[in-house]
């Protein structure tokens, strides 16, 4: 039942979203074709802009992985997290996500390449990446722009919500995809 509801939402969300955008554009008399092309040009730049960040992250990951460091560190933590249903492979993602959005995107991409985009780890990494924000980046830029030095509880709340999003991702991916994949 839950599985079906989630599958229906996933299948319909994007077509409906696109339809809503186009209908809104039609009603407000937006030149949809020209706007689309102008916006798409920006997307092209975005993809190229993140290339250096991905490159840096892939280089770091490759050295850690090929030298055996990653496996050694992750085996240390495995007994702590695997009883909770958290695969050790996603731990680097959980640590990096609040610090660097494009760095985390590199980790997600690497996990999907190694384990497959439709594997449990691939689905979990995708959900984690999509459901949390680059907390430290947002806090630094937003507070920095207006000269706030005492941020009060903003850091702890941001990190706790990242942790909550991470645990919720583990829970829901187990619930929705766990049975089908095991």
């Amino acid at each position: 039942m839950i599985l079906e509801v989630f599958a229906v939402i996933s299948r319909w969300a994007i077509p409906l979203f696109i339809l809503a955008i186009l209908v809104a554009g039609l009603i407000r008399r937006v030149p949809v074709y020209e706007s689309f092309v102008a916006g798409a040009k920006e997307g092209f730049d975005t993809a190229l802009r993140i290339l250096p960040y991905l490159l840096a992250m892939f280089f770091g990951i490759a050295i850690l992985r090929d030298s055996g460091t990653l496996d050694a560190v992750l085996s240390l933590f495995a007994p702590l997290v695997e009883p909770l249903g958290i695969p050790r492979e996603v731990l680097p993602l959980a640590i990096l996500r609040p610090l660097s959005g494009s760095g985390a995107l590199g980790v997600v991409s690497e996990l999907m390449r190694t384990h497959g985009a439709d594997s449990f780890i691939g689905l979990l990494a995708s959900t984690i990446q999509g459901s949390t924000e680059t907390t430290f980046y947002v806090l630094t830029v937003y507070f920095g722009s207006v000269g706030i030095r005492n941020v009060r509880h903003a850091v702890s709340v941001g990190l706790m919500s990242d942790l909550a999003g991470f645990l919720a991702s583990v829970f829901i991916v187990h619930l929705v995809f766990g049975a089908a994949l095991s």
Partner: protein
Amino acid sequence: MMNRIWLGMILIGMLAAAINPNVGLDVVASASVSAGEQAVTVAFGLIGILAFWSGMMRIAQEAGLMRWIARVLTPIGRRLFPSLPAESPAMGAVMLALSANMLGLGNAATPLGLKAMEELQALNRNRTVASDAMCTFLALTTAGVTLVPTTVVALRAAQGSSDPTAIVATTMFATTFGTTVAVMLDRFMLRRGHR
């Protein structure tokens, strides 16, 4: 922060490679080659789908979808930000920035967020200490409410997923939970701070 992490990853990896009898230092050279190939594959794989969503989002923006979401959310905004006057420019800017975040409008979200911070700072009594409204605004922003995780869907497609949008519903669930926790924690901390 990222400087130290990246440097740490490389130096620790090199040290481990040097002392690990099974590998040796030539992993550094091979890593540089494979990282380069991979970065190009992923970034170029992303171009088409990312461009598609940027195009769609441009239409959404020009059709005023962001303003519409901001208006729909204002009643909730009044409860979340009791310290902001309902019709103030600060409330308007905050709701607009949150709507841009929900739509995943990367290019619009940050400038709108900074504009909102400016408006909130104008109402702030102590210019170096975050106000209550700022804390709540940042709690919502860092929780990352997103309607459709377009970048992840694009990346999944680029990595050969047979169902790139399969994670839309699970992502909505997780982001809603994370945001709820953020709002409740922020409430709790604000109340404790004022006692």
